[in-house]
């Protein structure tokens, strides 16, 4: 039932267009990685009460994957950004700080 603005095509998309894709910014561990790293990559996920970063796909729209930052408690959406990045853009992080001072999520804050 959430609405996100697709950062590629600009459409405000809702549940009939979007597919969820789980946690954002996972680092892939492949052959040669140790068991703990690989387990964490495959199975261990954040479950925050508050600021969260997720992957979504505009699957019945432009087809692009993107990232969204939202509050899991109030469902406020802080912003969306393209998936081709290793961390959220600085201006988004600042926007979140203005609304949720002292937030942190994995290594980001």
């Amino acid at each position: 039932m959430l609405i996100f603005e697709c950062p590629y095509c600009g459409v405000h998309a809702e549940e009939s267009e979007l597919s969820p894709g789980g946690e954002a910014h996972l680092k892939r561990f492949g052959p040669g990685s140790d068991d703990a790293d690989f387990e964490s990559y495959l199975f261990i996920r954040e479950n925050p009460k508050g600021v969260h970063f997720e992957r979504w796909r505009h699957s019945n729209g432009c087809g692009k994957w993107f990232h969204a930052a939202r509050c899991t408690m109030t469902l406020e959406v802080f912003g969306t950004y393209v998936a081709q990045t290793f961390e959220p853009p600085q201006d988004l992080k600042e926007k979140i700080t203005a609304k949720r001072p002292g937030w942190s999520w994995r290594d980001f804050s």
Partner: protein
Amino acid sequence: MSTRLSSTGRLIDRSQKISFSFNGKNFSGFKGDTLASALLANDQILLGRSFKYHRPRGVVSSGSEEPNALVNLGDGGMFEPNQRTTTTELFDGLSATSQNHWPSLEFDVGAINQYLSRFLPAGFYYKMFIHPRPFWKYIYEPFIRQSAGLGKAPSEKDASTYEHFYAFYDIVVVGGGVAGLQAALTAAKSGKKILLIEQTAHWGGRAPVDGGEVNGQPLDKFVDKCVAVLASMENVTMRTRMMGAGVYDHGYLIAYERLSDHKPEASGPRHRLWRIRTGSIIIATGAIERPLVFSDNDKPGVLLASALRDYIVDYGVSVGDRTVVVTNNDDAYLTAIAVKNAGLEVSAIIDARPNGAGELGEKAKALGISVKAGKGIAKVLGSKRVTGVAICAQAGEGAVLEEIPCDCVAMSGGWSPVVHLYSHCGGKLLWDEEKLMFHPDAHNYPKNHNGKPFILPAGAVSGRMDLSEVLRDATKVGSKAVDSKKTSKPPSARMRVDAPIEAVWMMPQGAGIKLRSKAWLDFQNDVKVSDVQLAAQEGFQSVEHAKRYTTLGMATDQGKLSNINGLATLAASLNAPIPEVGTTTFRPPYTPISMGSIAGLARDEVFQPIRQTPIHVWHEEQGAYMEPVGQWRRPYCYPRTGESYADAVEREINQTRGSLGLIDASTLGKLLIKGPDAAKFLDMLYTNMMSRLKVGKCRYGLMCNENGFLSDDGVVARIDKETFLCHTTSGGADYIHAHMEEWLQTEWWDWKVYVANVTEQFAQVGVVGPNARAVLEKLGGMDVSKDALGFMEWKDGQIGGFKARAYRISFSGELSYEIAVPANQGLAFWQALLEAGQEFGVMPYGTEALHVMRAEKGFIMIGDETDGTVIPQDLGMNWSISQKKTDFLGKRAQERSYMVDVNRWRLVGLQTTDGSVIPDGAYAVGQGRNANGQKNTIGRVTSTYYSPTLQRGIAMGLVHKGPERLGEIIDFPKVDGTIVKVKIVDQVFYDKDGEKQNV
């Protein structure tokens, strides 16, 4: 006697008579009646039996909160159970029957339960039916199922049609009472797009019944004016008979419009489900009156004070000549006054408050109505209807002071705001100790995606009960919804001077167990004060636990009347304050909506779109037996006259292996992968080395997910240095396409690769059998000889004048070509092959023949041999896993300890010793038993068929250390208790060396 009055009746048109039937008896009412008002007008006061004790029940309310007066409505394809008589508008020919009784409404055998109620307390079913354990399935459950349930399920297909609407507004106002009208009017001045909806057929809510003046005009006139102004505004849409059913995140509102329930002869859809996205939602849903809790408060003739007022003023119906009003607040005095004004008798107002009412008390006294302050009802007299009440002191334990004969008891325990929609999306509530109600917490309204409150309650739902307060609040909320800086002046109304309400959760307050076990909280589910107290005593102290243990508020009315009384009773039992006990969760829909409206148009052939190949029509014309494969429909086989499906499959296989068969393989997924990094990309996706594939060649490949499990397979053809065509399974094309996009967009976004799904651009035909080459040569064109087009090669060219790409691949083990032609020529190409193949006795074959032939060859099928927990190594397919590649999806996972465990179940062939076919899904058992005392399983069947080629059953299965146990015989128990003995063999049953396909 309940009867029709001669004078009043605001909503009925006495010039239009309407006939209807109830339990086969014919009655008449007027246009504008509800079924409830029309039945009351005909002295039909007993309308149903309660759920558990089968107690006689009558109408208790006049709206959607009704728990008792539910009926079966209509017949055949129009039949619907559990319809509320209070919201069913009367129409000519309406037919209703009462529910939950046997043999008849008047005489019900199940009513014996009420005399056994001492033995049927809260949690009875849990306590009684747990032992002995096996009794549950065969004795208790069938018995309970037969005696439980209110209405009956329809036996015929729903004859009505339904639809969905998608709509977008700036503001939606839910509730067309005074608050909703005033809020809409204020907000509409901004020019914003507004939808105003009202669940009943009338605007104004209950204010016109209660009366009053606005800006010096009678309330009716004010309502008419508001409606006229709103109707003239272009930016405002108004709908009656439309209920706000549910509020969801980010301004999503589901509304339910009843288009033709009141005129079934009308054409078009019966119900319409609106799926609305809106900026904000003004909730003006008003409040519902609460019953008072006293002994026998469920008898027919006891009803809400506001409901009695409605029946008199709106419908001109008297429930009885002599009414007793019982209350803890001033509002019920309006009912006494309305009764008196209608020329009927008010025997007494029994006011639990020692000091009685404010100005309405004076007015009542002036009309000569006797008020008994500080008193309560000890019990209600009469069996199938009220004959009187016994009065006691509210402060006492129920000693009877006097008995007052009467025909009707009008009760009011205060008002509960309709906060349901506000709460659906997480809105927090506050307990108002003065008004004795939960209302929205103004600092905690649910927020939208921008962090702004988007649900704005207005009027009585916010606890504003006086007309003047309602108008002020609605004006304020209307302005707030449009962010207006200008403050609009609210219409003026005089404030009524009321005495405060007093908490009366039990009447009398010191009632003993005898009275408490007859004092009903939830009328529909038969929950009494004593049940909730027992639940608390037994440790069900959370309101959510107590609810489930007692079933309080779990009936079709979802506790609209019972919730607050129930949790106040629980709070008193726990000696805790009411806000600490809290409310149960409000969930959509507000009142039940039809299943048809949820489905909308998505039923029968439009339930799901069906994908058709270019040859689909031909299959249907041949009478093919079709089966679903993903969203496709594929021929399972082509039975001829007199043939069973099994006969047809056998014939198709024999002819294909013997001469020539054709299969429509157009559903196979076809993904085009192109770009400088295409080869590198495919090396990551497939377990084998696709980058080494030469242009012009084909290779079978396996695809795994990052967990290492097999997800798809298919043949990859290299078109040129930078282009590959990947075949996927029929059901898998879209999924695998998405899988590729995900990795390209989110992990390897700097790789230069494009993926295009060209599945539907081509028709593909499998030309299979010893005469496959001969028929293609007869059509002429491309050289398809062994030297020109070897096994696992592909070539572009012309065949019989068609532009074609031929792949020399085989899923049957025979000499086989798969030929792709442009989709629009698919049918013509298919027919050309049929014609040319006549001399070879060509036969089309279906998916079952395909499956049997691949199983004879020991080829795996995704979804049969795999189930999301199987890795390629389990299937003995190590040959297709590249050892040279440093990485591919699934490689790391396949190195995990469990994946390399020697004890994994692995693929083998299975052959019954008696030649029979192993049942699908059968498990093999070994030595010993597990912790549950069941035999240990050591394997299972994944594919099992009768092989016409070998003339016996063949199967594949995953067996513990299978390949090490060739020749061993294991047991597969069958459902009938017998055991089939099975020998573990090699999985390739036919032409192991591939001599037939490689000619």
